């Protein structure tokens, strides 16, 4: 079979798996909703305050939800030996890994796109910022899956990799957080956001190209 066939087969299989394990897959989404709702409870329900905090709250929650969902990216493949079979495939591991990351985003990132604007509305984010929120989610949630993949690949062989995973991945998420929440913030104040979106797009393209390389190297190390 050709490389493209293998690439799409991986995406199809992971989507099918996610569908069969849908209860498990929904957890990060619930987690996301839960964190966002915790903020008004913790800082008080002053509309003014919530409105200023909304972009940051939504993006921090998205980050944490992504972090929670990362573990499912390679864990089951690692445990049932599918990862070994992927390594033995004559096709380029990087491309197969990219397929897995894309499937992961479709399952965990895409739902955020639907839920986040709703929550933003609850937090009182001005409507003029909704479009930007959407755009940042489209551009930046794949980045979360991509960058996270490196961290998971490095820690998947560890019994208690969860803590280390967050230590590895969260610092690398910082630029995504800054540009994405800042873009939403500026949009809420009616300022232009072109620069932020351009940078997010640049980071996304660069990550799509570069991330599979260290990820597959790290997976090879983890299978060892």
């Amino acid at each position, binding site marked *: 079979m050709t490389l493209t066939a293998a690439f799409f087969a991986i995406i199809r299989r992971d989507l099918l798996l996610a569908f069969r394990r849908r209860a498990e897959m929904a957890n990060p989404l619930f987690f996301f909703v839960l964190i966002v709702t915790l903020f008004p409870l913790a800082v008080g329900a002053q509309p003014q305050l919530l409105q*200023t905090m909304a972009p940051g709250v939504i993006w921090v929650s998205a980050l944490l939800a992504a972090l929670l969902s990362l573990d499912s990216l390679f864990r089951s493949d690692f445990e049932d030996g599918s990862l070994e079979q992927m390594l033995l495939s004559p096709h380029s591991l990087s491309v197969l890994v990219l397929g897995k990351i894309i499937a992961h985003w479709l399952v965990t990132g895409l739902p955020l796109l639907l839920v986040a604007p709703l929550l933003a509305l609850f937090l009182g984010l001005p409507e003029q910022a909704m479009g930007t929120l959407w755009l940042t989610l489209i551009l930046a949630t794949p980045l979360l899956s991509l960058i996270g993949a490196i961290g998971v690949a490095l820690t998947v062989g560890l019994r208690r990799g969860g803590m280390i995973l967050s230590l590895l991945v969260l610092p690398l998420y910082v630029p995504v957080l800054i540009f994405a929440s800042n873009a939403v913030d*500026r949009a809420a104040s009616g300022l232009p956001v072109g620069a932020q979106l351009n940078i997010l*797009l*640049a980071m996304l*393209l660069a990550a799509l*190209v570069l991330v599979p390389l260290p990820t597959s190297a790290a997976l090879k190390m983890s299978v060892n």
Partner: protein
Amino acid sequence: MKPARKQRLILIGLMLVGLGLAATFALQAFNENLMYFFSTTDVATGKAPKNSLFRLGGMVIKGSVERPDAGLLVKFKLSDFNKEVPVEYSGILPDLFREGQGIVAKGKLDERGVFVAEEVLAKHDENYMPPEVADSLKKSAEQK
């Protein structure tokens, strides 16, 4: 072997295209204003947002600092050598806050067009010299 090599070339080509596009977008972004920071000219010409927090940077105009009462309230004017903006702040000012010194203030514009600062941060410059040298520099500047 041949098709594998061709495939590898295609992949490398795609990677280069991706990186090239990424660089283009990044360059594009640097041409636009990224700063979450406004100059006094921006404020005076109405480019700065009303009713939301932002940072305002500028030089404290000499002789503009006044303390209207015995309290902590300080009024001064900031300038970027073009337009001036009045600033109000109540709190303890940092050591480096002096007239003629660059500062950054964080706060909001009120209806009067006065920038009400919540935080004032003094910025020191990158010059290090003994006081005598600074004096002589100043003198030579004045002579010119």
